[in-house]
């Protein structure tokens, strides 16, 4: 009997937290289909009384929000591919090759993970402006293409690969580049997908750096686009709901499909750490 009560109360608590977790998303999506009058009406309902796509239509025609979306996808894909490849390569060399200074380099890369953005961003901004990189996508890619987190994850993962495997390939006459591409990369799929997911999200939500570097509307990214929209149409709540929904919902869909990989990635990083 006592066990039953405990079981039910456990489920009730979990369900309650679950509802609190989902409610803001549900409210955002439902409100994005309401007209502005209905959003600011005195009497509020959760479901839209009259379902309208007007917010999405006018968001696109006034603001070209899909362009920011496409820009963000492009930059996020490029950065993610680069980070994954560089992390794997560095992780391979730092875990499987023994040479002097190896631990020093690795330790230094780890230390950089602790440095707050506020320490480096001002001088990076000055450097990039002087180098004439303002308003180029190169400026968004360069400072994030090496990830301490990525190198750390890949070093942990690749060091667990048996040396015999690599040795056998060497005896068969494969050079190191082939070993890396044909053995190491394919065997690190799980960590690669974890890094890819995180890196993609970090680019997707990064605000300050693109805000500082990109000054043309056509090249701007999603997170900055959101604040620009809010600055220009401060009272268009319907539009803001639609814009936030466009930035959030695709992420949730991808996450729900690949949630096992997400979770495995986070967990792997913690246990090995």
């Amino acid at each position: 009997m006592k066990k039953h009560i405990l079981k039910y109360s456990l489920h009730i608590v979990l369900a309650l937290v679950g509802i609190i977790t989902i409610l803001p998303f549900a409210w955002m999506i439902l409100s994005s289909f309401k007209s502005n009058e209905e959003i600011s009406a005195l009497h509020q309902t959760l479901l839209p009384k009259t379902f309208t796509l007007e917010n999405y239509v006018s968001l696109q025609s006034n603001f070209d929000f899909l362009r920011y979306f496409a820009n963000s996808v492009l930059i996020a894909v490029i950065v993610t591919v680069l980070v994954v490849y560089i992390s794997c390569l560095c992780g391979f060399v730092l875990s499987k090759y023994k040479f002097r200074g190896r631990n020093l380099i690795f330790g230094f890369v780890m230390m950089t993970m602790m440095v707050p953005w506020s320490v480096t961003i001002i001088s990076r901004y000055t450097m990039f402006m002087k180098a004439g990189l303002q308003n180029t996508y190169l400026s968004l890619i360069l400072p994030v293409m090496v990830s301490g987190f990525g190198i750390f994850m890949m070093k942990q993962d690749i060091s667990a690969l048996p040396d015999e495997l690599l040795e056998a390939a060497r005896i068969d006459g494969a050079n190191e580049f082939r070993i890396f591409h044909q053995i190491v990369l394919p065997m690190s799929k799980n960590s690669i997908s974890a890094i890819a997911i995180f890196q993609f999200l970090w680019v997707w939500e990064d605000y300050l750096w693109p805000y500082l570097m990109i000054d043309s509307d056509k090249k701007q990214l999603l997170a900055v686009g959101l604040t620009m929209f809010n600055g220009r149409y401060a009272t268009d709540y319907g539009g803001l709901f639609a814009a936030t929904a466009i930035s959030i919902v695709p992420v949730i869909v991808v996450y729900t499909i690949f949630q096992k990989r997400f979770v495995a990635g986070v967990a792997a990083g913690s246990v090995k750490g």
Partner: protein
Amino acid sequence: MFKKKRALQSKSEIVLRNMVVTFLVAYMAIFMVIPIVIAFAGSFHNWNPLNGTYKWIGLDNYIRMFQYPTFWVSMGNTVIFCIVVVAFRVVLGLGLAYAISSRMVKSKTFFRTIFYMPTVTPLVAVAYVWKIMYNPQFGLIDNLFGLNINWLYSSKFALPAVMAMTIWKDFGYAVILFMSGLLSIPGDYYEASGIDGANAWQTFRYITLPLLRPTMILVVITSLISYLQAYVPVMVMTKGGPGTSTFLSSYLVYDQAFVKYNFGYASAIAFFILIFTAVLTLLSFKLIGEKS
């Protein structure tokens, strides 16, 4: 024991090693070391890029920082923010992970998937959604609870409102870490404590909690590092206001650097945050390491 040293080394191995080492060292120098050095030097200058000022003023930026009331307010807010949000993250994370891991709960994946959802969503967008949720006229929160509080415009409620959003966004990460920490505890430990007649609380207090120490350290330290750098929620939801009641130290750097363009002054504050982060990280290592 006597591992045969492989005769170093094929040519391609040396080429690859040199490539990677050169790349990493050069990259770290250009994108980390040089910026840190420039910022450190800049913190001793009156540095404003708009009018091209760059003038040596010694320790003035640091002295001004310590005399600036907003600096202390923002440090105080940051400490409160960190303590409250990290505490909620640990308690909620551990509690929910413990509940989900219980043998009585079946749909583990379902709950885990939902709890982790806010963590993967982009912060800027989420902060906007919460900003509208706090609207006193048609926001979800006042309507749902029948309240009439103008959360983000009240110096009493604005900081708690930002903290609540952050807790909601991030607790799922701790749930996942604690779940995998709990999974890694071997079942024998629980059997042994069952034989010894320990009750549920004793088992949790003397078996589970000490064994979760590595996870605890990881959660607390990664949380501290990221919350000391938080500025997006403040920028979107309150702009530091009303007054200075929601200024966090990293938002102060953003405000001084990229709203007011006091680069030297902002760099001084940034270095203070760096040292503060390092000290706090070491402290929490020590504190959590010594318990048990």
